[in-house]
C-alpha cells in the first residue's frame, strides 16, 4: 500500500490512524496553551498582591485554563487513543463511520480555534487584545453569565465554542459505540475486549448521555443572552440554580469521561509490564460500568453550599461515598496485578504506577468533601483545586502519558527514549506534588479559589510560592517530553511489531500499521490472544503481506466542508449578523448532502 502524502491527504483522510494523529497533535498543542495559561496563573499567585496580570486577564486565564484542559486537551487526547488504538484492539480495519470520524475531528478543531480566537479578536469587538476571552469560569455559573452581568462577547465565545465541541463529542460517541459493538473480529466477545476498549465504550455512553444535558443548559443560556428569555433569571420567576443542576448533571459524568479512559490505559499497561494477566478482569470491567452509572447520581455534591437541605445533602453524600467502592476495587486489582509479576520499569509503567499513587490521593480527598459539613469548609477553596488536580493531572494526565509511552511506537514506528522518559516522569512527579500538595493546606487555611490576589496576612504566601515552583517544574518536564518527541522523530529506535511483549491485537501488526491494519482479520480465541498461558498458546500474527487485495476507502472532502459550516454558524450570534447563520447552515447542509451521495467506490 502506498501512503498518500501532502496536505490534501490529511484534509480528506478517513483513516482512523491519521485522524488519531490529528487528534493527538491538536490536543497536545492545546495542552501546551492550557499549560501556559496555568503558568501565568501561578506566576500571578507566586506572591501576595501579585501584579503579573490584571484582575480581568486573570479571570480569563483561569476560565480558559479549565475549559481548554477539559475540552481541548484531556478529552481529545483520550480521543486520539480511541481513534488510533480501539480499532486495532478489536481487530478492525477502521471505525464504523470513517467520514463521521473525520467530521468529529474537524468540528473539534474548529470549536477549539473558535474558543481561542477570543484571545486575539478583541479589536473586532471594540476592545483590546486579551479582553474578550471567556471569563465566567469553566463552569459558567448563571446568572453571572447573563448579559446583564457579562455584557461583552466573552461568554458568547464560551457558550458557542462549547456547543460546537459538543457536536464533535456526540458524533464521536455514537461512532465508537457502533464500532466497538459491531466491528469486533471473530471471537472477540465482549468479555474478551481489552480493558482500554471497554472503558472507551463506557466513556462513550457517558458522552452521549451527558453532552445533551450541557447542550440544553447552553441553549437556554444562549437564548437568555440573545433573545431575552429568562431561563436563569430569578426576577422572572426562574432560578439561577437551574444552571447549576444542568451543569453538574453533565459535569460529574464528565469527570468520569475524563478518568475512565486513563483507567483503561493503566489496566492495559500494568499487565504487559508485569507479564501477568489483569487481576480480576471481570471485576475491573464491571466496576468501570458501575462508576459510569453511579456518576449520574452524585451531581449535587458540587452544590452542598447551595443549601439543598439536610435530606438531599445526606442522600448525595451517601451516593458520592459509594463511588469510592468500585474505585477502590480497581486500585486493589491493579496492585494485585503487579503482585507476583515480573515488573519491568519502563516509562509507561512508571506513569501507570504514578497514576495509581496520585489518584489515590485525589480519591481520598474526594471522600473528605463527599461529607457535606466538611465540604462546606472546603468547597470553592484551593483544597478542591488540589483534589481535582490529583484526579485530573495525577490521574488522567499520568494515565494518558502512560498511553503515550506505551503506544507511541505503534503510532509512529519509533520508540521514545526511555532515558528521557524517566527524566520526564520524575520531574513531573516531583513537580506535580510540589505544585498541588501545598494547595490542600492553602485551601484549609482559608484561601478561596478563582481569586486573582490575596493578602500576605492570610499566611499562605510561602505555600503559594512552593506551588508556583512546582508548576514551573512541571513545565520543564513537559519540555523534556517535547524534546523526546522531536529527537525520536529523527533518531528514535525503530519499533518492531511488538516492542513490549503485549497480549492484545494491536501488537500483532507492524508499527505503524499499514492502511488496512490487518492483512488477515484475526480470529480471537481468548482474552490474551498473543500470550501463552496455562490454557492456550499464542495466536499466529497476521502475515506481513496480505494474501488477497484489500479494499480501502479513499478520502473525502465532505466531512471537513460540513464541519466548516458550524463555526461559521457560530459567527452569526457573535457578530449579530443573521445572514452568516444562513451561510453556515448552507455550508453544513451542502457538505452533508454531497457526503450522503458520495459514490461508494473511489
Amino acid at each position, binding site marked *: 500500500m502506498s501512503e498518500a502524502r501532502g496536505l490534501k491527504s490529511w484534509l480528506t483522510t478517513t483513516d482512523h490512524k491519521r485522524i488519531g494523529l490529528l487528534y493527538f497533535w491538536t490536543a497536545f498543542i492545546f495542552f501546551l496553551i492550557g499549560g501556559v495559561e496555568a503558568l501565568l496563573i501561578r506566576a500571578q499567585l507566586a506572591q501576595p498582591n501579585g501584579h503579573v496580570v490584571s*484582575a480581568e486577564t486573570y*479571570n480569563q486565564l483561569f476560565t480558559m485554563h479549565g475549559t481548554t484542559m477539559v475540552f481541548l486537551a484531556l478529552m481529545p487526547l483520550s480521543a486520539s487513543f480511541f481513534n488510533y488504538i480501539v480499532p486495532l484492539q478489536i481487530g478492525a480495519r477502521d471505525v464504523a463511520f470513517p467520514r463521521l470520524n473525520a467530521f468529529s475531528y474537524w468540528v473539534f478543531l474548529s470549536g477549539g480555534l473558535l474558543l481561542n480566537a477570543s484571545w486575539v479578536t478583541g479589536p473586532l469587538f471594540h476592545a483590546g487584545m486579551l479582553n474578550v476571552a471567556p471569563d*465566567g469560569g469553566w463552569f459558567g*455559573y448563571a*446568572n*453571572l453569565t447573563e448579559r446583564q452581568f*457579562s455584557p461583552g462577547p466573552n461568554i458568547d465565545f464560551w457558550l458557542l465554542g462549547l456547543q460546537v465541541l459538543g457536536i464533535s463529542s456526540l458524533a464521536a460517541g455514537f461512532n465508537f459505540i457502533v464500532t466497538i459493538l459491531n466491528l469486533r473480529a471473530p471471537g472477540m466477545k465482549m468479555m474478551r475486549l481489552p480493558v482500554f476498549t471497554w472503558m472507551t465504550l463506557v466513556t462513550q455512553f457517558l458522552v452521549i448521555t451527558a453532552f445533551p444535558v450541557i447542550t440544553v443548559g447552553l441553549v437556554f443560556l444562549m437564548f437568555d443572552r440573545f433573545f431575552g428569555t429568562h431561563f436563569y433569571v*430569578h*426576577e422572572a420567576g426562574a432560578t*439561577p440554580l437551574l444552571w447549576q443542576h444542568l451543569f453538574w448533571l453533565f459535569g460529574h459524568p464528565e469527570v468520569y469521561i475524563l478518568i475512565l479512559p486513563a483507567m483503561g490505559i493503566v489496566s492495559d499497561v500494568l499487565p504487559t509490564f*508485569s*507479564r*501477568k*494477566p489483569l*487481576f*480480576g*478482569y471481570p*471485576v475491573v470491567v464491571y466496576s468501570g460500568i458501575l462508576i459510569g452509572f453511579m456518576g449520574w447520581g452524585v451531581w449535587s455534591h458540587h452544590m452542598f453550599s447551595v443549601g439543598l*437541605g*439536610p435530606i438531599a445533602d*445526606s442522600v448525595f*453524600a451517601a451516593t458520592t*461515598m459509594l463511588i*469510592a*467502592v468500585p474505585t477502590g*476495587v480497581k*486500585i*486493589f486489582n491493579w*496492585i*494485585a496485578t503487579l*503482585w*507476583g509479576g*515480573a*515488573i519491568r520499569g519502563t516509562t509507561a509503567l512508571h506513569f501507570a504506577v504514578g497514576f495509581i*499513587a496520585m489518584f*489515590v*490521593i485525589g480519591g*481520598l480527598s474526594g*471522600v473528605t468533601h*463527599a*461529607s457535606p*459539613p*466538611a465540604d462546606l*469548609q472546603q468547597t*470553592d477553596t484551593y483544597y478542591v483545586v488540589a483534589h481535582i488536580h490529583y484526579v485530573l493531572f495525577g490521574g488522567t494526565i499520568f494515565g494518558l502519558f502512560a498511553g503515550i509511552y506505551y503506544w507511541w511506537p505503534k503510532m509512529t514506528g519509533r520508540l521514545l527514549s526511555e532515558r528521557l522518559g524517566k527524566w520526564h516522569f520524575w520531574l513531573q*512527579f*516531583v513537580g506535580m506534588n510540589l505544585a498541588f*500538595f*501545598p494547595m490542600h493546606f492553602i485551601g*484549609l487555611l482559608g*484561601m478561596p479559589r*478563582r481569586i*486573582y*490576589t490575596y493578602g*500576605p496576612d492570610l*499566611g499562605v*504566601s*510561602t*505555600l503559594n510560592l512552593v506551588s508556583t515552583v512546582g508548576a514551573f517544574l512541571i513545565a520543564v518536564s513537559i519540555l523534556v517530553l517535547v524534546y523526546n518527541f522531536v529527537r525520536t522523530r529523527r533518531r528514535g529506535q525503530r519499533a518492531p511489531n511488538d516492542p513490549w511483549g503485549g497480549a492484545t491485537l494491536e501488537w500483532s501488526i507492524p508499527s505503524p500499521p499499514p492502511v488496512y491494519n490487518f492483512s488477515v482479520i484475526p480470529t480471537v480465541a481468548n482474552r490474551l490472544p498473543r*500470550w501463552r498461558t496455562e490454557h492456550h498458546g499464542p495466536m499466529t500474527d497476521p502475515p506481513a503481506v496480505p494474501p488477497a487485495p484489500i479494499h480501502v476507502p479513499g478520502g473525502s472532502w465532505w466531512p471537513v466542508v460540513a464541519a466548516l459550516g458550524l463555526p461559521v454558524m457560530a459567527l452569526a450570534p457573535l457578530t449579530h449578523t443573521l445572514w452568516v447563520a444562513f451561510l453556515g447552515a448552507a455550508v453544513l447542509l451542502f457538505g452533508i448532502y454531497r457526503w450522503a451521495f458520495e459514490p461508494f467506490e473511489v
Partner: protein
Amino acid sequence: MPRIRLWLLTAALAISGCGGPFPQSTLHPRSDFARATDVLFTNIFWWAAAVFVVVELLLVVALVRFRHREGRPAPRPTHGHTLMEIAWTLAPAAILVFVAVPTVRTIFATAGEAPADAVKVDVIGHQWWWEFRYQELGLVTANELHVPLGRAVQLSITSADVIHSFWIPRLGGKRDAIPGHVTRIAFRPDQLGDYTGQCAEFCGVSHANMRLRVVVDSDSGFGRWATVQLAGPAAPAPGTLAERGKAVYARSACIGCHTIQGVSPGVIGPNLTHVGTRTTIASGLFPNDSAYLARWIADAPSLKPGSLMTRMQPPLTDADIAALVAYLESLK
C-alpha cells in the same frame, strides 16, 4: 519516597514557617458549627490517611519485591481470586460506614434552626460588598458584622445581583448567597475577636476583593455598638472641614447610591451613616484612614477593579475630597 518527604516538608511549612496566625484557617475553629465540621473532617482525615498508607505501602512493596530479574521463572498467570476481591470490596464499604454515620449526624446537627434568642441578621451579597441588616434592631451596616459572644447567630443570606458565597472560615462553613433564595446558617461563636472571611463563589471581576470582617464582642460591647449604630449620624460642628464635607456630599453623586440617615437615601452602595466606626473600607480591603479614603473617593476602580463607584465627572477637587474625608471620618 520523595512524595512523603515532600508531604512532611509542606506540613512543616504550614505549621511553623509561613507566618501564621492564619486568620481564615478552617483548622482553628471558634464556633460550635466550625468545631463540628472540624471534628468531622479530622475523623475522615485519619481514615483517609490510614487508607493512604496501606495502599501506597502495598504499591511500593509490590514494585520492590516483584521487579523483573533475569533467571526468575515466569510469573504465574493468576486471573483473580474471588474471596480476596470480595474482601477488598467490603473493606472500603465498611470504612465508609464509619465516615457516613458521623457525616449524617453532623449534617442534621448543623442544619437545625437557631434558638429563639438568636441574633438574627439578613446578609445580602452585592458586587462586591456585603450588606448586613439586623431586622429586630432596625439596624443596617456593611462589611463588618458585629455579634455578641455566646449567643447563637442566625444568618439569612441572599443576593442583590449574582451568586456569592458567605464564608467566615473560623466561625462556620460557607453558604451561597443566591438571588431569589434565602439560605441560612447558624453558629454560636465561643471566643472574642476579629475574624475575617471573604466571598467564596466566583462573582465577577473583583471577586477576590469581596472580603468581610466579623467582630465577636462581649454582650455589653455589642450593646454599646448597637446603640451607636442606631443613633442618627453625628452632625459636624459648624465651621469645621467636616461640615464643608457634608455640603460636598450633599451636592455630589454620592447621594444617589449611599444612605446617610437624614441626609441621603441611596441603597446601591453601603450605608455610610456610621462609616467612621468601621475599621476598614472597600469591603475589608483597606484600613479606614484618611489616605485610603481620599484615594478611594478619587478613583475607586483603580483600587478595586470593576467597582461600581466610578470616577466622578467632573472630578472632585482635592480640597473637596479632603473635606469629604473629614466628614466621613466624623460619622462615628
